[in-house]
C-alpha cells in the first residue's frame, strides 16, 4: 500500500502516459481548432514530462531536463504559428470549426 | 534564334552538374598520402592491346608502389570459349595465346617489371577475338576480388585487374551492328533538328534514306555473315562483336553481336522497316513527330535483336514501348486511345516481371555450383566480377539448377523462367495474353501494323529462344509440354476466331496469333528441325504478314472500310491487287512452293516424334487456316462486282509506291519457297548448337519418356 504513495518514476510515467492519451483523444474528437491545438500541447508536454522524469530518477544527469526546456521552446513556437494559421482560417471561414474547412477533399 | 542557341548550350552545360557536383560530395577517393604505409601498386601497360591481324604484342606489368607486389597469377582470358569440344573431340581453338612460355607467379619488388608476349593466332573462320590479360595480385587499391568459384583460390587478399585484348574489332566487323542500331536514332535526331516548316516531304525522304542505308547495311551483313561459324569456333559463335564496359558497378557491358538465331531477325527488321516507311507515305498530320517516333522504334527493335548483355537488352526492349504508344495513339483509328493504353499496360506488365527475373539471374550467377565451360565471369577488360549480365556467359554458366532454392514450393530457377516467359508470352502473343493484339492491330495505322506484326511479335519468340531456352534449359524441359499445348491452342483458337471476323484487318490479326502458334510448337519440340522451322516461320511470317497488312491498307485507303462482306468481285477491277492479294493469302495458308510451307513442314517434322497428338491437331489447324483465308479471298475478290465501290476502285489499281512495297516481299516469299537455303543456311549452325545445348540439359530418361508418349 505504501508503495503507491512513495512517488517514484512509475508515477511520472503514468501521468505522462495519461496526458499523452488525453492529448490524442482531444485531437481526435474536438472540432474547435484551438482545442485541437491544446491537445497537441498536451502530447508535447507528456513527452517533456517523460524526459524530465527519466533524467531525474534513472540517469542522474540533466540531459533529459535540457531536452524538456527545448521542448517548451519548440511548443511555444509551434503554438504561435498554429494560432496564426487559425486566425487566417477564421478570416476566411468566420469559424474555427475544423470540420467546416473541407474545400480540399478527394 | 539566340534563345535556341542558349537552350542548346544549357543542355550541354546541365550535364556538368550531374557529374561534378555530386562527385564533389565525396572527395578523397585517392587514399591518404602513402608515406605513412607502404603499399604495392600494379600498373599494366599498355591499357589495351588491339590486333588488326595475326601478330604478337607485349604486355608490361610494373610495380609502381613502395612494397612488394605479389603476383599470384597472370591469366589469358578468351571470351567466348565454352569448353565444348567439337564432335570429333578436338579442342576448340583459342585465338589469343601466349607467345612463348606463360608468365609464372612471382613477387615484384618496387620498380621492377615483368613482360609477357601475347599473340593473336586465329583459326581460318575466326575473324574477331575478344579477350583479356588478367593479373591477380595483392594491390588493395584495385576493386576487391569478390567470391567467385571460377577463379582459383588465392590468399584472401587477392585483387584483380586486367587489360582488354581486341582483334578484328575495327572496321566493319566491329562497327556494323553499332551503325545499324544507332543510325535510325541519328536520323530521328536529324528530323528533330529540322524545323517543321521544311515541309512533309523532307521528313519522309530523310526517314526513307535512313531506312534505306540501314537496309544496305543489312545486305552487307547478309553477304558477309559466315554461315559455318558455330559455338565451337569460339567467341560463343557470335560475329560482328562490339564489347566494352558500360556500368562497372553492376558489371554491365555494351555488348552487341549476331549469331544464327538473331541474324535473320536483324535482316527482317531492316527490311520491314524500309517497307513500313513506304507505307507511311500518306501520313498527313504531324509528319515530323511520326518519323521521329518511327525511327526511335527502329533503333529499339534493332538493338533488342543484337544485344548480348541482358541489361542492354532490357533497355532496348523498353525503348520500343514509348514510340509505339504515341504512334498508335496519335495516328491510329477511332478507338486508338483504348487500344494503345491496353497495348502499353499489357506489355509493360510483362516487361517489369522480366526486369525482376533479369536481376534475379544476375545475383544467382555468382553462386557456386556446377559450372561448365565459362572460364571466368570477368568483364571484357579483364576486371574480375562476381556476377554477370552477359547473356552468353549466363547461357554457358549452367549453375542455376544446383544453386536453386525452393521458394513458395517451386524451384527458384523455375520461378525465374516463368517471370521471363510471361514477358515474352505477352509479346508473342500467346493465349491467354493475346487480347491486346486485335485491338492494337486494328487501330494502328497501316505502317505500324506492318511493324507490329512483322517484327514486334518475333521478339517474343526470339526472347524465348535466347533467354528461356538458352539460359535456363532445365526449366525449359520442365515447361516444354505446357508450351507445346499453348502453341496448339494458339493455332486452333486463332484460326477459329479468324473465321468469325468480318473486319479484314482483325482477320489478319488473328491469323498472326495462329501462325505464331506454329513457332511455339516447333520450339517446344526441342529438336533441330523443330527449332529451325520455328525460326524460319518467324522470318516468313514477318514477310508474309507485312504483305497482308499492306494489302489491307491498300483497300482501306481507297474505300475507308475493311469489311469483308462489303466487297465482291474486286478482282475484276483491280487485277494486280487481286493477284498479289491471292499470292499473299496462299503464302499465309502454307501453300507448298511458297515459303510458309517450308517453315510449317519443318515444324511438323520436328514436333511429330515428340508430341504426336499435338502435331496432329496442329496439322488439322492448317485446314481451318485454309478455310478462313480462302473464304475471305472469295468474298472480297470473286463473284459479282459490288457497284457501290465503282468510283473508288475502278481505274485505281496499285500505284507505284504500293507495288514497290509488295513486289520485293513477294519475290522473297517465292524464292524462299523453292530455294530456302539462303535463309536456312544462316540459321542452321546456330540452331543446331542451341538444340544440342538444350537437349543436353534434359532430365532423366524416365521423365523424357513420359513426354514422348504425348
Amino acid at each position: 500500500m505504501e508503495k503507491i504513495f512513495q512517488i517514484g518514476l512509475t508515477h511520472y510515467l503514468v501521468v505522462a502516459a495519461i496526458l499523452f492519451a488525453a492529448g490524442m483523444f482531444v485531437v481526435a474528437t474536438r472540432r474547435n481548432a484551438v482545442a485541437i491545438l491544446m491537445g497537441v500541447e498536451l502530447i508535447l508536454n507528456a513527452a517533456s514530462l517523460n524526459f524530465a522524469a527519466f533524467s531525474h530518477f534513472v540517469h542522474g544527469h540533466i540531459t533529459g531536463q535540457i531536452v524538456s526546456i527545448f521542448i517548451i521552446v519548440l511548443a511555444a513556437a509551434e503554438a504561435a504559428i498554429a494560432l496564426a494559421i487559425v486566425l487566417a482560417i477564421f478570416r476566411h471561414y468566420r469559424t474555427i470549426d475544423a470540420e467546416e474547412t473541407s474545400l480540399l477533399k478527394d | 534564334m539566340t534563345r535556341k542557341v542558349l537552350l542548346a548550350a544549357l543542355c550541354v552545360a546541365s550535364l556538368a552538374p550531374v557529374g561534378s557536383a555530386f562527385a564533389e560530395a565525396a572527395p578523397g577517393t585517392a587514399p591518404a598520402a602513402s608515406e605513412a604505409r607502404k603499399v604495392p601498386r600494379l600498373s599494366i601497360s599498355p591499357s589495351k592491346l588491339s590486333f588488326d591481324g595475326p601478330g604478337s604484342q607485349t604486355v608490361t606489368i610494373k610495380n609502381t608502389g613502395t612494397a612488394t607486389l605479389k603476383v599470384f597469377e597472370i591469366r589469358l582470358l578468351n571470351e567466348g570459349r565454352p569448353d565444348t569440344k567439337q564432335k570429333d573431340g578436338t579442342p576448340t581453338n583459342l585465338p589469343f595465346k601466349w607467345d612463348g612460355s606463360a608468365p609464372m607467379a612471382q613477387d615484384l619488388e618496387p620498380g621492377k617489371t615483368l613482360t609477357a608476349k601475347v599473340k593473336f593466332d586465329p583459326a581460318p573462320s575466326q575473324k574477331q577475338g575478344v579477350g583479356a590479360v588478367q593479373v591477380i595480385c595483392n594491390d588493395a587499391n584495385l576493386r576487391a576480388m569478390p567470391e567467385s568459384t571460377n577463379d582459383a583460390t588465392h590468399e584472401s587478399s587477392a585483387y584483380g585487374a586486367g587489360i582488354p585484348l581486341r582483334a578484328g574489332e575495327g572496321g566493319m566487323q566491329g562497327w556494323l551492328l553499332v551503325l545499324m542500331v544507332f543510325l535510325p536514332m541519328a536520323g530521328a535526331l536529324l528530323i528533330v533538328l529540322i524545323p517543321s516548316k521544311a515541309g512533309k516531304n523532307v521528313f519522309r525522304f530523310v526517314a526513307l534514306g535512313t531506312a534505306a542505308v540501314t537496309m544496305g547495311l543489312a545486305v552487307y551483313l547478309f553477304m558477309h555473315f559466315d554461315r559455318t561459324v558455330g559455338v565451337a569456333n569460339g567467341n560463343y559463335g557470335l560475329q560482328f562483336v562490339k564489347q566494352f564496359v558500360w556500368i562497372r558497378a553492376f558489371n554491365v557491358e555494351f555488348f552487341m553481336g549476331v549469331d544464327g538465331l538473331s541474324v535473320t531477325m536483324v535482316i527482317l527488321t531492316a527490311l520491314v522497316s524500309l517497307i513500313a516507311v513506304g507505307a507511311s507515305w500518306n501520313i498527313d498530320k504531324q509528319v515530323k513527330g511520326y518519323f521521329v517516333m518511327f525511327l526511335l522504334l527502329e533503333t529499339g527493335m534493332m538493338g533488342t535483336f543484337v544485344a548480348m548483355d541482358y541489361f542492354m537488352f532490357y533497355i532496348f526492349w523498353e525503348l520500343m514501348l514509348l514510340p509505339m504508344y504515341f504512334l498508335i495513339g496519335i495516328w491510329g483509328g477511332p478507338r486508338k486511345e483504348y487500344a494503345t493504353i491496353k497495348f502499353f499496360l499489357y506489355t509493360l506488365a510483362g516487361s517489369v516481371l522480366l526486369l525482376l527475373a533479369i536481376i534475379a539471374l544476375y545475383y544467382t550467377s555468382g553462386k557456386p555450383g556446377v559450372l561448365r565451360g565459362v572460364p571466368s565471369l570477368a568483364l571484357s577488360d579483364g576486371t574480375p566480377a562476381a556476377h554477370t549480365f552477359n547473356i552468353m556467359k549466363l547461357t554457358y554458366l549452367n549453375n542455376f539448377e544446383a544453386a536453386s532454392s525452393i521458394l513458395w514450393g517451386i524451384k527458384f530457377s523455375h520461378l525465374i523462367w516463368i517471370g521471363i516467359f510471361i514477358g515474352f508470352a505477352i509479346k508473342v502473343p500467346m493465349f491467354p495474353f493475346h487480347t491486346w493484339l486485335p485491338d492494337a492491330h486494328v487501330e494502328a495505322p497501316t505502317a505500324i501494323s506492318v511493324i507490329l506484326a512483322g517484327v514486334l511479335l518475333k521478339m517474343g519468340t526470339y526472347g524465348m529462344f535466347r533467354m528461356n531456352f538458352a539460359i535456363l534449359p532445365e526449366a525449359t524441359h520442365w515447361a516444354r509440354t505446357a508450351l507445346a499445348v499453348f502453341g496448339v491452342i494458339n493455332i486452333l483458337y486463332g484460326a477459329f476466331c479468324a473465321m468469325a471476323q468480318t473486319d479484314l484487318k482483325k482477320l489478319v490479326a488473328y491469323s498472326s496469333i495462329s501462325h505464331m502458334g506454329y513457332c511455339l510448337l516447333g520450339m517446344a519440340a526441342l529438336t533441330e528441325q523443330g527449332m529451325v522451322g520455328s525460326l524460319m516461320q518467324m522470318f516468313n511470317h514477318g514477310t508474309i504478314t507485312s504483305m497482308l497488312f499492306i494489302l489491307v491498307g491498300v483497300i482501306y485507303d481507297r474505300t475507308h472500310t475493311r469489311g469483308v462482306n462489303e466487297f465482291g468481285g474486286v478482282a475484276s477491277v483491280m487485277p494486280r491487287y487481286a493477284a498479289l492479294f491471292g499470292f499473299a493469302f496462299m503464302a499465309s495458308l502454307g501453300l507448298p512452293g511458297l515459303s510458309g510451307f517450308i517453315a510449317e513442314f519443318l515444324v511438323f517434322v520436328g514436333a511429330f516424334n515428340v508430341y504426336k497428338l499435338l502435331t496432329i491437331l496442329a496439322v488439322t489447324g492448317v485446314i481451318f487456316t485454309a478455310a478462313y483465308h480462302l473464304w475471305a479471298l472469295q468474298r472480297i475478290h470473286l463473284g459479282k462486282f459490288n457497284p457501290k465501290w465503282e468510283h473508288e476502285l475502278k481505274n485505281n489499281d496499285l500505284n507505284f509506291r504500293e507495288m514497290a512495297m509488295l513486289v520485293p516481299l513477294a519475290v522473297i516469299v517465292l524464292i524462299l519457297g523453292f530455294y530456302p537455303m539462303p535463309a536456312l543456311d544462316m540459321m542452321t549452325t546456330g540452331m543446331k548448337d542451341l538444340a544440342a545445348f538444350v537437349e543436353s540439359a534434359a532430365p532423366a530418361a524416365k521423365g523424357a519418356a513420359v513426354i514422348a508418349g504425348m
Partner: protein
Amino acid sequence: MGPLSNVESLKFYAPEMVLSAGILLILIVDLIGDRMYKRKGGVSNRKVHGTLALVTLVVAGAVLWWVNHSTPESEVPRGVAIFGGLLARDAFGDFFKYFFLGVTFVVGLMSMRSRDAIDHTDGDRDAGEYFALTLTTTLGLFMMATATDMLTAFLGLELVSIMGYVLAGFKRRDRKSSEAALKYVIYGGVASGAMLFGLSLLYGLAGTTSLAGIKASAAVAASPTTLITAVTLVLAGFGYKIASVPFHMWCPDVYEGAPTPVTAFLSVGPKAAGFAMLIRFFGGALPETLLAKGALLDSSPWPLILGASAAITMTVGNLSALGQQNIKRMFAYSSIAHAGYLLLGLVALSGGGSGSRSILFYLVTYLFMNLGAFLVVIALAESGLGENVDDYKGLGTRNPFIAVVLCIFLFSLTGLPPFAGFAGKFLVFSALLEHPTSMNVFLAILGVVNSAISLYYYARLAKVMFFDKAAEGAGPIKVYGVHAATLTVLAVPTIFLGVYWAPLLDAADQAIRAGAPAVIGAARAVAGL
C-alpha cells in the same frame, strides 16, 4: 577520432552559418532596403530577395566545397561527430547538403517568376519573407540530414515542419491555402508529439540522447517490447515526414492547397531529409542484434514492419492517384507512391550498403523528375492554365516543347528506360533481390506491378496532351524563358541518368561507405560492391 569540441566544429558548420547570414540579410534588406531601392526606381522586391537567396545558396555550396577540400584527411577524418556528438560531418551528410542546396536553388528560381508563390499585387511585398522562410527550411533540412542526436534530429524536423506550415499557408487570401496550412499543422503537431514521446522512451532506456549511445546501450537491446513501442512511435514521426501510409493523410490536401513552388519543395526536400534520418536511425541507432542482417523474418520484426509499410504505401499511393482529376493532387499521391518505393530500399538496408545506396540514387533522380514535373505546372499556370487534367488538352499542339518535356518527366516517374527513374527503380529492386527471401521477392513483384499501375495515370496526362484536341479558341501558350531554361536543365539529366550512372553511383557509394563510424552502423559492414 572523438567528437570535436564546439570551437573546433565551427569551421565545419560554415555552410549553415552562411545560410543563417543570408537569412538575416534578407530580413534586414526587407525591412530597411525596401524604400532605398524602390526610390531608385524599378527593381522589384522579388528580384532583389530572390537574387540574395540564390547567391546565399551558391556561396553556401562553395563554402561547403572549400571546407571539405581545405581539411586534409589526416587532420580530420571524413566521418567525425561535431559539436560534441550532436551533428555529424561526413560524406553522407555532405551528399544531402548538396542535394538540398540544389533543390532550394531550383525552387527559388521557379518562385521568382511565379504569381502563385509571391503575390504580384502589392508590389511583391511578401518576397522577402518568402525567401527567408525558404532558406530557413533549407537550414532545417541540413540539420535533419546531419543529426546524430535525438535532440538535433527533432529540432531539425520541427524547424522544417514549422516553416512548412507557414509556407503552405503563404497565400493569405486563398481559402485553400489556409485550409492546407491548418491540416498540415494539426497533423504535423500530432506526429511530432508522438515521435517525441517515442524518443523519450528511448532516452529512458538508453540514458543518452545520442543515436550511437542508443545503439551501444545494453538496456535497449534487453527490452524488445519497449523498443517496439518506442520505435513505432518514432516511425509515426518519420512516416509523417515522408508521407507514408498511414501517416499520409495530410499530403494530398497540403500539396493541392499550397502554392505550387512550395509543393514542389515539400515533395522533394523534406522527403529526402526524412529518408536521411531514417537511414541514420535504422543504420546507426538500432542495435545490430535487432537489425537482422539478411532480413530474415524470425529474428527481428523490423524488416517485416518496414516491408509492410512499403507495400501498403506504394499500393495506396498508386491506386488513389488513378482517379484524381487535379494534377497537384495526382502528383501528391504519386509522391506517396514514390515514398513507398524508397521504403523498399530501406527494407533492403540490413543486407548491406546497397539498400542505402539505392535510396540515395533514387532521391537524386526523383529530384530531377519531380521538380521538373511541378515546374511544368508552374510555368503553365503563369500563362493562365488551370490545374485540372482536362486543362492540359491539346498541349502537344499549343506548346510542343513543354508537352515533350512533361512527357519525359512523366515517363521517368513511371520507371521506363532509358530515363532516370528506371535507374533508380532498378537499383532499389536489385537491393531487394540481392537476398531473395520470400518477403523480398514478394515486395519486388509488388513494386514492379505498382510501376505498371502507375503508368496508367502518368500516361493519361500524356494522352490528354497529345491525343486530345485543344479546346475551342485555345491558341499557343508561351512560357517564360527562365522556366524553359530551368526545365531544360532538369530534363537533360532525366534523359541521361538512365544510361550514364557512373558519377552519381560512385558519389552515392562514397557517401555510404565513408560515413562516420558512430553513425552508419550496418551499412559499413559491407566491403564494397
